[in-house]
């Protein structure tokens, strides 16, 4: 793979990286439980081989892609991104992956394609969180992007991090990384990609539309009913140095993505 190199395109931040042990132990992946350590404890129960991604909807070349073919076709590069969770913590993670745009160009979106819908694997036998009777999430987990967001050069399909294969709890074998949006948009363990004409439903928006919008861009100016979004704890945080820093609009990627939202009221389209 190509190591990340500094540049003006936002692909590389030189901020201190969150240690691998923290990024791989402190995760949100509700398919394995709602506790931060549940994914690291239970995600090994998920089988990731063989793995296929089904591509459907408004594309000229729909079909199923084997993970091996995907890896053979698209060269991997390293990207060092900030990751901002809606819960007001953040990390800096070196990902390995390829631009989603390359995959989409390969399947040739039709002129009707306006949105991209994603789905996570749903295999209750291997995902104990989906068997929890109190959970109100309608599995499988779904996410979506507007096509121009999906085609942005920052938008990555990641298969590794810290120079290694993705751990299961971080979304193995393949996941989305959209660094200017809250972390839950970066859907894990993707099995289905569908291009659509209409805006697709997403899991958190369906579960609580007042709190979670379709766009979910990192934005300190638009407050969340649950957590103030003006600051974040950059992890690792500790008792004596909480590492509380101000949050930047679009998670600091405004130069690369602000033009996508020109003329939009971001308080309305949160």
């Amino acid at each position, binding site marked *: 793979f190509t190591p990340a190199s500094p540049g003006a395109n936002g692909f590389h931040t030189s901020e201190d990286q*969150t*240690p691998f042990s*923290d990024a791989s*132990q*402190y995760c949100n992946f*509700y398919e394995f439980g*709602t506790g*931060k*350590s549940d994914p690291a404890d239970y995600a090994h129960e998920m089988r990731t081989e063989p793995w296929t991604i089904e591509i459907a909807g408004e594309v000229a070349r729909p079909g199923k892609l084997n993970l091996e073919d995907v890896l053979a076709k698209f060269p991997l590069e390293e990207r060092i991104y900030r990751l901002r969770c809606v819960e*007001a*913590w953040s990390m800096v993670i070196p990902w390995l992956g390829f631009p989603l745009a390359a995959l989409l160009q390969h399947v040739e979106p039709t002129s009707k394609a306006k949105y991209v819908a994603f789905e996570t694997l749903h295999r209750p036998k291997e995902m104990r969180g989906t068997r*929890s*009777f*109190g*959970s*109100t*999430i309608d599995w499988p987990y779904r996410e979506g992007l507007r096509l121009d967001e999906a085609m942005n050069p920052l938008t990555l399909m990641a298969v590794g991090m810290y120079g290694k294969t993705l751990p299961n709890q971080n979304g193995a074998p393949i996941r989305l990384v959209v660094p200017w949006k809250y972390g839950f948009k970066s859907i894990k363990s993707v099995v289905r990609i569908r291009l659509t004409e209409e805006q697709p439903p997403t899991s958190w928006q369906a*579960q*609580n539309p007042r709190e979670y919008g379709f766009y979910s861009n990192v934005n300190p100016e638009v*407050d969340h*009913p*649950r957590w*103030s979004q*003006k*600051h974040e*704890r950059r*992890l*690792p*945080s*500790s*008792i004596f140095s*909480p590492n*509380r820093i101000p949050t930047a609009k679009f998670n600091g990627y405004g130069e690369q993505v602000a033009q996508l939202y020109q003329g939009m009221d971001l308080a309305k389209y949160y």
Partner: protein
Amino acid sequence: MLPGSLKLCVFVACLSPLLWLVYAAVQGDLGPDPAEVIIAVSGEWTLRLLGLTLLMSPLRQWLGRPWPIRIRRMLGLFTFFYACLHLLTFAHFFLGWSPAILWEELIERPYITVGFVGWLLMLPLAITSTRGWQRRLGRSWRRLHQLVYPAAVLGCIHLLWQVRSDATEAVVYCAIFALLLGWRARAFLPTQKV
């Protein structure tokens, strides 16, 4: 059991969540985001100890022994202690000790407002928990300490309002508090003659 040794046991038991937190902090076991662990542990133990405090007076009636009332004050004070730890954690990690941000949170986020009001209601109870205050306030002491009931209700709302995708835990806490408060509400029901 001797009253003295019972009190010592309860004291050590109530202190153990704090000791666990300190031990985990020293060992570096609190993980990359200690704020989340400390706020969860202190919040849970505030509610658990508040429930135990409220259990003492029914327990005395059922057992016909005085010891539950003798440890009630300690349980109540530990409840307030964990509530303070909860609030301090919030101030330290989430507010950066900024009064302006506290004010903003109190106005914008109702679950924080009710949690804070719950803490405020417990404050005078903690201050007047001594024998001296009990004597000085006389009858009104009992009335004042009935503030623990609205504090418990606010604690439940504070928890319920934070449910994201799974309400099981919050519902269990609310059911327990409903039983504890409901048992007291019996007194206000018309007495049935058989």
